[in-house]
């Protein structure tokens, strides 16, 4: 199980990268449509459009990292699906990351961290 920390780290990185992009986009969406007239497509900045496309691809890498980790720790199907979907719900990927680490700790899957 020496590969588990690597899988956990990969999942954490993707959970945070995807989560931060999605959180930024969610806030941007609310501000944009609420105050900046984004319903008029002429006004929508290119960066905003491209960030959504980028989130789609980031989510794919999130899926790969998540499935890899779920297989390693043999998470149940329902829980795995919840983790996968968390990447599409704003702020939920942070929760998923926290829960994964908690799960690994409580099931004694992770070797004790070295004392520094």
């Amino acid at each position: 199980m020496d590969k588990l920390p690597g899988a956990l780290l990969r999942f954490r990185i993707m959970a945070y990268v995807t989560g931060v992009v999605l959180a930024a986009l969610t806030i941007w969406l609310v501000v944009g449509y609420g105050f900046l007239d984004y319903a008029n497509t002429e006004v929508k900045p290119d960066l905003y459009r491209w960030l959504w496309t980028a989130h789609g691809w980031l989510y794919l890498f999130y899926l790969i990292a998540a499935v890899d980790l779920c297989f390693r720790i043999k998470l149940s199907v329902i829980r795995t699906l919840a983790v996968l979907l968390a990447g599409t719900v704003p702020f939920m990927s942070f929760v998923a990351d926290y829960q994964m680490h908690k799960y690994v700790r409580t099931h004694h899957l992770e070797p004790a961290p070295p004392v520094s």
Partner: protein
Amino acid sequence: MSSAPETRVRPSAQDIWRTAITPRWLFALVTLILFIAISVVLGRWQWDRTQDILAAERAAAAEPAQISEVLNDDGTWSNSEIGRTVILDGEFTSDEILIPNREYQGEPGTWTVTRFQLDNQASIAVVRGWLPNGEISPPIRREPARIEGVLHPSEAFYEGANETQIITVDATAIADEWNTSLIDGYVMLQEQDPILLAADAAAPVIVPPTVQVGDVPFPLQNFFYAIQWWVFAAFAIFVYGRWLYLDARK
């Protein structure tokens, strides 16, 4: 994992098949097929949108515009309008010039350039077409007309080309010749309604535009969405297969 016994072996194809036809895994299979169907449809929808946007942008770019929409307040126009088909309302004048050394389908000849006065009194040079050497375009009746043509920048082959004789379609040089002021650039006549020739003679041959316009930007965003849906579907197949394999191993 220290607690896991190391007795697991690679499951045989038969083991996997027996697992796959249990009610639980048949339900998973139905879910998988549903997910694939939805992904393929959504991907297809984004793909169609990509094509629709492309078609709409091309149609918009080809759509003729009133010259007034293209002109800035000071009578200039921007380079992005080069190659745009424009509609002009006004009338041809008697100011006319022949530009030499123009071939059409391998035959030497001239371009007939006439001043077209717009309804708002501004003028622009219009290339009415090509005539073989020695022929002169018939006179034009002065009456209101609507013409359609492609916007070109002034020709500028080299410095001083027009010093002794005007040989390029250059708005500045032609305006001097006619003692008037012209909108920069010129229009290559493509359509004319009504035909305004006074005499019963052949009109200059309408020549295709010199400039070629590039294609419209490709809607990459929708294209990527389409691809993403299909990749998700493929990913779901992988996850199903991996889970089935792990389950069959138990």
